[in-house]
Structures are given as C-alpha cells and as structure tokens.
C-alpha cells in the first residue's frame, strides 16, 4: 500500500513539475500578454494542484492534509482573480494605445 502511494506521489508531483515547466515556457515564448496569462494560469492551477495532490499521502494527520487543500484553493481563487484583473488592465492599456 505504501509503495503504491509513493508511486502516486512520484507521478502526481512529476506531472505538477511538468506543468510548471509548461507555464514557464509559455511565459517566455508566447507572443503577447494575454496568451502568456493563459500559460501562467496552467502552472498556477494544475502545477500547484498536482503537487498538492501528490503530497497528500505524504503528510500525517487530517489537519495538515486539509491545510494543503486550502492552500491550493486559495491560490486558485487569487490567481483566477488576479488573472482577470491583469487581463482587464492589459485591455485598458491597449485601448489607450490604439
């Protein structure tokens, strides 16, 4: 059972790390701010989400697991909001430039 959970951790954390890679590559390579924002939210939500998911079997106690999930939810909440706010600021800036 423990070995199975460890495999789960390896896979989930590894996939999460991959999404951080994807987010960074997108942030660096995509052509404009709005597409870069798209790449960033993948790293935020999926990358951190999978890392949290993978760590769940490794923490002891229900409270610590709950805290991990709360962290993920908080980051999703704030990144979704910040993403909207950043996109709106970008749109305003573009309208001003036109």
């Amino acid at each position: 059972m423990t070995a199975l959970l460890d495999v789960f951790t390896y896979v989930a954390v590894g996939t999460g790390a991959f999404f951080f890679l994807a987010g960074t590559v997108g942030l660096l390579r995509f052509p404009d701010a709005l597409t870069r924002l798209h790449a960033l939210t993948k790293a935020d939500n999926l990358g951190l989400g999978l890392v949290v998911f993978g760590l769940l079997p490794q923490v002891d106690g229900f409270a610590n697991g709950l805290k991990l999930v709360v962290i993920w939810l908080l980051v999703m909440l704030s990144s979704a909001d910040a993403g909207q706010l950043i996109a709106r600021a970008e749109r305003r800036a573009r309208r001003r430039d036109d």
Partner: protein
Amino acid sequence: MTAFLLAAAGFVLAMVAAGLVRVLRGPGDADRLMAAQLLGSGGIAALLLGGAAIGDGSVVDVSLTLALLAAFASVAFVKFAPSGDSP
C-alpha cells in the same frame, strides 16, 4: 522519497527562476505582474515540497501565510499598477 521531493522543489524553483526573466524584461507591467504571480505559486509549491522532504509540518503554515499575502499583494499590485485602476 526525500531526494525526489527536494529535487522536485529545486526543479520548480529553477522553472520559476527562468520565468523571472519576464519580470526583468517586461515589456509591459502586466508581464511583470504575471511573473510575480508565477513566483508566488512556484514558491509555495517549492516550500510544500521542501517541507515534506525535511518532514517539518509547520512549513505548511508558511505556505498558507504566503498564499494569503500573495493574493493580497497581487491584488494591490494590479490596483496600483500604472496601467491599472487609477488609485
């Protein structure tokens, strides 16, 4: 397991470091904000991985604080950014 978790933390930090090039280069304020955002979630992920690796449960509390304050800071940064809402 410990080595794997530490390596994963190091990898995420390295990714974040690469993403920071956006903070340095810009060109727009939006890009700088995004890179700071990526650093927030990447930093939290690295802390969680490192904390699990060294077996220190209280690192989770640091991540929790970081998640809240990063949310506050990113909202404030967008609000006060030159291209954002006028304060």
